[in-house]
């Protein structure tokens, strides 16, 4: 899919976001920081879907907000077609933002209940009037409704008159209004019923082909991410643990966290029950305000050694696998990376 242009449309370099933890009401002093995103780098190519998976609190949504400019990074760069958007302001920033849009998780609260569907979908035109001349806007909104499979006659209805799946379509229509190149999707289907999720996923795939969109698809459902993604990144406690093509990650994971995560996903096949290898992790994810030294995963990792506490593993093709060939050779932030197949075929 992304073979034609290997020039990344978005490049994230050493992105860091620390939220200060303060004490005191009158005289606030900083007593620490929540290291929500702590040195993350990745690329997104044109027309591709990069899936990001990880458990709650691992920093997935913070990455989305940073890319959307809803949060300022503590450090690091976000390059859009080679230009660092964290340094932009005013008109230049506005021009870039037109091209990066977002679809949110919760179709119940992300739409203003007092606005009609037409106003909601057309709202981006108020901020970017150059995108559609005033007279054309209603027609444009009708067209968008049609594109996402909703009846254009619904233009004057209110959000509460729609089901969850329909509201998510409204959110997608709004995301498409400005003809963006990139759409950041933060858990776009997780609030929807199983029978409706498939409808929305199909819609998103169709729109991607039609408009050559790039998706950053954040979700915790590993099977949906696998279905839609060309590449997948696995996050743990503010860092990227492993990244690669869907096949590299799902069939040839080399990072212990990825292996545990994949093995924990319930497989909808009762016959696989007895054949499955289950890695049950102990304990909970540590607090991002006080993450472990060295490898972030070491407090729950069964392979941890002294080196893991002393030395932070970098996200790169692991030394031990440098001479390997095929899909096991991909970036994995582990000193002792090795292949282990955990999902029954």
């Amino acid at each position, binding site marked *: 899919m992304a073979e034609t242009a290997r020039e990344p449309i978005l490049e994230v370099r050493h992105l860091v976001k620390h939220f200060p933890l303060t004490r005191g009401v009158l005289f606030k002093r900083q007593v620490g920081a929540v290291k929500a995103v702590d040195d993350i780098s990745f690329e997104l190519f044109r027309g591709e879907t990069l899936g990001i998976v990880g*458990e*709650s609190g691992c920093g997935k949504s913070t990455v989305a907000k940073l890319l959307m400019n809803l949060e300022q990074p503590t450090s690091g760069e976000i390059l859009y077609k080679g230009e660092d958007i964290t340094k932009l302001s005013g008109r230049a920033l506005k021009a870039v933002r037109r091209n990066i849009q977002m679809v949110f998780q919760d179709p119940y609260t992300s739409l203003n209940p007092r606005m009609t569907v037409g106003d909601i979908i057309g709202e981006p035109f108020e901020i970017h009037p150059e995108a559609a001349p005033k007279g054309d806007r209603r027609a444009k909104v009708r067209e968008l409704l049609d594109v996402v499979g909703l009846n254009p006659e619904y233009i004057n209805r209110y959000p509460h008159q729609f*089901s969850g*799946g*329909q509201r998510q379509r409204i959110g997608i229509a709004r995301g498409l209004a400005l003809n963006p190149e990139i759409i950041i999707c933060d858990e776009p289907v997780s609030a929807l*019923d*199983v*029978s*409706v*999720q*498939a*409808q929305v*996923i*199909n819609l998103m*795939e169709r729109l991607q082909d039609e408009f050559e969109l790039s998706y950053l698809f954040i979700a*915790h459902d*590993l*099977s*949906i991410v*696998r*279905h839609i993604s060309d590449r997948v990144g696995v996050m743990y406690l503010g860092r990227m643990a492993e990244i690669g093509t*869907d096949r590299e990650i799902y069939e040839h994971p080399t990072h212990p966290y990825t292996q*545990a*995560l994949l*093995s*924990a*996903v*319930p*497989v*909808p*096949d*009762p*016959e*696989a*029950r*007895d054949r*499955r*290898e*289950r*890695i*049950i*992790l*102990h*304990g*909970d*994810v540590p607090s991002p305000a006080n993450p472990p030294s060295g490898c972030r995963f070491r407090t*729950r990792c*069964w392979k941890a050694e002294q080196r893991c506490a002393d030395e932070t593993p970098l996200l790169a093709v692991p030394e031990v696998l440098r001479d390997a060939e095929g899909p096991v050779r991909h970036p994995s932030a582990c000193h002792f990376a090795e292949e282990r197949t955990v999902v029954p075929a």
Partner: protein
Amino acid sequence: MSDRTERPTADEPNATTGTTGPVETTSSGAVRIDKSAEAPADRDTPLLEVRDLQVEFRTREGVARAVNGVNYSVNAGETLAVLGESGSGKSVTAQAIMGILDTPPGHIAGGEIRFRGEDLLTLSEDKRRAIRGDRIAMIFQDALSSLNPVLSVGYQLGEMFRVHRGASRREARERAVDLMERVRIPAARERVNDYPHQFSGGMRQRIMIAMALALEPDLIIADEPTTALDVTVQAQVMELLAELQREFHMGLILITHDLGVVADVADRIAVMYAGRIVETAPVKELYAAPAHPYTKGLLESIPRLDHKGKELYAIQGLPPSLTALPSGCSFHPRCPLSTERSTTERPPLHPVLDASEAPVAGRGSACHYWKETLHG
């Protein structure tokens, strides 16, 4: 090494009764005799049986028929999964069993809820309360809102023993510590006086499980017990629940919308749609060959490897409004097999027959065309 990769093998459902056999192997490998084998009279009576349950809610749009003739049963030592989408009536059924329905606006409009053969709906208030408070326990999706935020976890656990068992304060506290250890809360003795918000989500859910287990009930109803948890924590909690269930030989009703969780832990499954059970079967048989178009659609819409890059199968349309249920079969507006008959005649839960026309134990489908669905 801290990973435990073994998984106790699930017992084969007993072909004739659809329940697990009387002899089973515990997780430690020791053979244990099923309690119900000692009391043969109990064997034919399910632990819990819901018969033709009807629950209605008065709403501004009219009467919502949230539960519309539900039938299911669960035996001791068995896990029954109740699967359905949001609003299908899974939780309302559970609330009716537990006697915690919101009344008004809700009320039970008909049916029976039999516990060891006795109908909870007609039993005297005292007896009913004794069973519900003592023999049946419930675990909710959201532990934080079901635990009292201003009381310590130890107090809340201990309260079960003080109120129901007349334990002294000291005893109650000791039992609370024991329970916390049972559900593997690290440093239980030091943490017994902590408040719910001081525990992580996974630990709170384990505390809820401890609370449900406190009086060693015969039946646990778990309503989406892991939906709010991360997958690696969900795996811990489900494993714990399954292990304790085996150990205490409890019946477990697991309410979920996750086909993966069902495949992982349940013996039997009841699929709900628009307030009714549309299909029920031993888990392996249902996944291998569903006999209802709705179940079939759900299974087909799961993303699978060989579907990559292709459209996912999607059930068309939306679940119906409960105040205006479609005529005949409630699924007909979304069903690819729907016929004229489907729109006029409501299908009962037909027994599903095998190739030699003999009924398959524990299998039923509420579809006129279950045969075509099963074989098509």
